[in-house]
């Protein structure tokens, strides 16, 4: 039942594609049962997410956020930690960013303001991940359960903070005030007018830089080696001299910081204010991206673009097809996690048999 017998190209490329196709097949079945044409729906989805330049810009805009949450979940996974808390960490990251903006956006110039926002986001995200990390390292509390609890706590806490402190007097909308224009990240449509009025901004490049740093750190540095050793066999790593509890805490801090940075694209790149529930499930999508991308930089990028396309295309699809609400995207996400994560070895035995037959 193991995939060890299979060559790397099979486990890295063929199996994920087969799993993805299975998820899409079930999706097509659901769309069919809802009384719509799956092929036509798929065409609408692809057209509005990739072919149309404005749609592509939206796809990449969503992907820029997803890269960060995907990286957050991936780095923790490398150390054997299943961080389900990226949702709450990104939410708190948004708060950190907003606190920095509200404090400084009247005084600092843009070249100090934007880094301040990023530091605020990373810092708050890291702090929110620190507690579950610390509890896992020192008290043995299960990281999955604590990070789930921290998502709930984050949601209640943010509700309280936004309603009580951040809504400007006289406003009804549950959101902070709009930041000054100095805090707006440059949009790519300023340079490429074909992208139209879309929020795609320089965060895309930040995401790519983060992917490169992640790739180098994890697979080329001695620190990355220790992280992977911790994830593969905690006891062996311990005997090899790796300080496991420090490793867990540091990895969770980085994971939380990455999740927090996801807020930069959503807030400084698009809305320019903090609103209730701005994360909108991006943290959970990060889990799917990490699983599908097998924690590899290129895999994470491709999966982030895929989920960006699903978000954008699914939204357009719901506008054109009355029976397919935007929530259909959540179903597709669940199916992709199911097939690409939980059942990742579904086709491994069959594929192994097939390859063996060819060699003989």
């Amino acid at each position, binding site marked *: 039942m193991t995939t060890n017998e299979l060559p790397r190209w099979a486990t890295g490329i063929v199996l994920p594609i087969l799993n993805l196709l299975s998820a899409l097949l079930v999706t097509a079945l659901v769309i069919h049962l809802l009384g719509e044409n799956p092929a036509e729906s798929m065409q609408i989805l692809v057209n509005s997410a990739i072919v149309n330049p404005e749609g592509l810009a939206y796809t990449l805009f969503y992907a820029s956020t997803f890269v960060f949450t995907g990286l957050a979940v991936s780095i923790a996974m490398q150390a054997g930690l299943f961080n*389900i808390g990226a949702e709450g960490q990104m939410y708190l990251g948004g708060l950190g960013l907003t606190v920095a903006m509200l404090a400084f956006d009247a005084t600092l110039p843009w070249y100090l303001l934007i880094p301040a926002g990023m530091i605020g986001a990373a810092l708050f995200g890291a702090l929110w991940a620190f507690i579950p990390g610390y509890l896992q390292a020192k008290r043995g509390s299960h990281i999955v359960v604590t990070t789930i609890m921290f998502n709930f706590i984050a949601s209640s806490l943010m509700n309280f903070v936004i309603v009580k402190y951040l809504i400007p007097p006289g406003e009804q909308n549950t959101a902070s005030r709009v930041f000054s224009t100095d805090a707006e990240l440059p949009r790519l449509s300023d340079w490429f007018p074909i992208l139209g009025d879309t929020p795609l901004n320089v965060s895309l490049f930040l995401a790519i830089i983060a992917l490169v740093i992640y790739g180098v750190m994890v697979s080329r540095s001695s620190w990355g080696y220790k992280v992977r050793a911790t994830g593969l066999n905690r006891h062996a790593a311990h005997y090899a001299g790796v300080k496991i509890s420090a490793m867990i805490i540091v990895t969770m801090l980085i994971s939380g910081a990455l999740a927090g940075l996801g807020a930069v694209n959503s807030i400084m790149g698009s809305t320019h204010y903090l609103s209730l529930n701005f994360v909108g499930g991006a943290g959970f999508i990060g889990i799917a991206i990490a699983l599908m991308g097998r924690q590899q930089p290129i895999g994470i990028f491709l999966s982030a673009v895929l989920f960006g396309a699903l978000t954008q295309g699914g939204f357009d699809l719901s506008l054109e097809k009355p029976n397919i*609400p935007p929530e*259909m995207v959540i*179903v597709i996400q669940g*199916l992709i996690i199911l097939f690409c994560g939980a059942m990742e070895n579904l086709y491994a035995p069959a594929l192994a048999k097939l390859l063996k037959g060819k060699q003989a």
Partner: protein
Amino acid sequence: MTFEDLHLGSIVVSTVRNAPVLLFAAMAGLFAERSGVIDIGLEGKILASAFVSAAVAFTTQNPWYGILAGIAISVVLALLQGAIAITQKGNQLVAGIAINIAMSGLTFVVAQYFFQQGGRTPGLGDARLSEIVLPGSAAVADVPVIGWIWTQLLGGHTILVYLAFALVPLVHWVLYHTRFGLRLRACGENPHAADAAGVSVEGTRYGAMLIAGILCSFSGAYLAIVQSGFFLRDMSAGAGYLALTAMVFGNWRPFYTFLGCLMFGFFGAVQIQLEGVDLPVVGRIPGALIQMVPYVVTVIVLAGLMAKSVAPKAIGVPFVKSR
């Protein structure tokens, strides 16, 4: 509203009414996890059975058909989880989370398709379970304390409430005093020893998942058919996760898990009662902060500051028969 208006009695009664959602799910999780399968997909199963039982109960105007349909969908999902965890030896955490996410979306999509009411079902009206009035209620209703105990605390609930509370000693008996329970615990602690003793580990785990599926469905049915009288998007609101933590809190033992469920039920009741109440010293506590209390308590429990909980040893580990 002032502090004097807080009725301890109504907090106790609503604790009793809040508990079954958690109790059914936690007892379901107990079977799955004691057999060695992590059941983080409780939330998704609760949602699915809540929607299906509400939809079927509304369509047939019969709550019992609703409950049966809820059992069916929950069992299907539990067996899917079982197939991944037991036969495929896949990642059990990921399977559960995938089911939770897929069901959160699918219940909305299907509810919207059938009822066109923004992802909720129409109100069930008469298709809800009726409340049981204990004999002699009218006679004792005016007696001060006894009247309240007889008509509100003990009586006036639906059959599912009594079933939930009766389940606790029943689960205890099955786990600790039956042959199946012994085998179940063995599979969760040391599957290789169980296997050597001639117990089918796979069969026992599938059996546990089947029971978990049935029990979990009542949780959803209770939410939709008894508590609210309709299905609403994501109406389980973390109950599956809370049930799971009640189980961790209770050290995977029925009676302590029961106490955990009561604690969460109590906080749920207090939250509703405290909304907008001026308390002495602290003043008015915002609802969002009270909402946080059970989760914070859970984290404190998980940190081992109240009690240390020890999971079944083989939990989450796929069983590979040694040759």
